């Protein structure tokens, strides 16, 4: 008897590069902790492809909501904060690829470009003071900022992240050119 499947197109946002193997392990681990072995065996989760932070996950047709819950539970992979967004669900691999992975959504930011070599200081004014640090990742308008003064570290610890997430609009003097 043939199983009926659904294919979820996903996009992964993370603080660093995620190898395919670690992603698979984390998803299966989350599925096991959330639903147990019995529940997991009914879902048939499988990562079919994953490159450039986008991929396709297969699951059984009637378990799409459970699979979404499992993907939402994923928070950290190898100590790096990670977020998985489901771009869409389709009945065929081809449908998922053509509809959600190949088309460039207007809202969707460009793929993250690593520019660690050309680091520039960047200052941000907030009402309790200034946060200054190095730009780690830059992605059109979005900037990840690494800061190491004690007050900033306290905020980062509280939020359980490594970098401040800011945008180009937050920078006081727009001298940054990465």
């Amino acid at each position, binding site marked *: 008897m043939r199983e009926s499947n659904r294919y979820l197109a996903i996009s992964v*946002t993370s*603080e660093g590069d995620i190898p395919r193997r670690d992603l698979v392990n984390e998803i299966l681990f989350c599925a096991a*902790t*959330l639903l147990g072995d019995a529940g997991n065996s009914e879902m048939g989760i499988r990562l079919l492809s994953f490159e450039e932070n986008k991929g396709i996950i297969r699951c059984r047709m009637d378990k799409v*909501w*459970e699979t*979404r*819950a499992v*993907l*939402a*539970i994923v*928070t950290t992979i190898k100590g790096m*904060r*990670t*977020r998985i*967004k*489901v771009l869409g669900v389709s009945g065929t691999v081809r449908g998922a690829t053509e509809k959600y992975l190949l088309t460039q959504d207007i*809202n*969707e*930011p460009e793929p993250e470009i690593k520019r660690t070599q050309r680091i520039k200081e960047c200052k*941000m004014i*907030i*009402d*309790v003071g200034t946060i200054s640090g190095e730009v780690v990742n830059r992605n059109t*308008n*979005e900037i990840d900022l690494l800061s190491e003064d004690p007050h900033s570290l306290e*905020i*980062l610890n*509280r*939020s*359980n*992240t490594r*970098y*401040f*997430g*800011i*945008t180009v*609009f*937050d920078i006081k003097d727009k001298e940054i050119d990465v």
Partner: protein
Amino acid sequence: MGIIKSSDFYDLNIHALPDYADSPSRMMLEAKYMGYSGICLTSINPANTFRDTDITMPTPRDFEIYTGIEIQADNVSRLNKYINRSINKVDIITVSGGDEDINRGAVEDGRVDLLAHPASQGKPLNHVLSKAAADNGVAIDFNIDALIRYRGGSRVRILSALRQNTRLARKFDAPMVITSNARSHYDLRGPREMMALGMLMGMTREEALHALSTVPGSIINRNRNNNRIMDGVEVVQ
């Protein structure tokens, strides 16, 4: 077009700088990307002062930012004082729940809009509190960050308390709201993922959909358009 696709989604409890590590404009971009039509940026600090964030970025189309405060208090009289102080400054008043007395003080006050994470200490609400919440129109929050932040035994405890809250809210018809309680943009989840987690908390799909779209929408509508004359009296068209 399906009913999920045609709905507007709101996330009413998102924390940004200076309290947590993401700037308001970054949160706005990320939430827009996730598919929300509005978020509430909630100040949370020990002094319970509201800091208005001035966003230098143009707001995207079909997107709204609301202001809020999450009040942390250790007794009910302090809670009243803080509510009085911030009632006219913010769109949405949230009370940081968990403690039984504070939960009670919050649901019995009609000025409060949302009781945030009432099950954070692993104890569910009871029938008295749920009935009071329904009478006073205080929404009960189902925070998904409890599920994504904790692992193992503590998650089991919180999840079973949340399930009990769902049953109580359904029985007494108290408004339910699903929020992310996000502390960085990595804590944000898409509306359908939030619905999936809400269904793990015992909601039906329709309840989860309303907890993300119509219920928060009506709270915003109630507070934004000055339809509120006094406690329990509203202008109805």
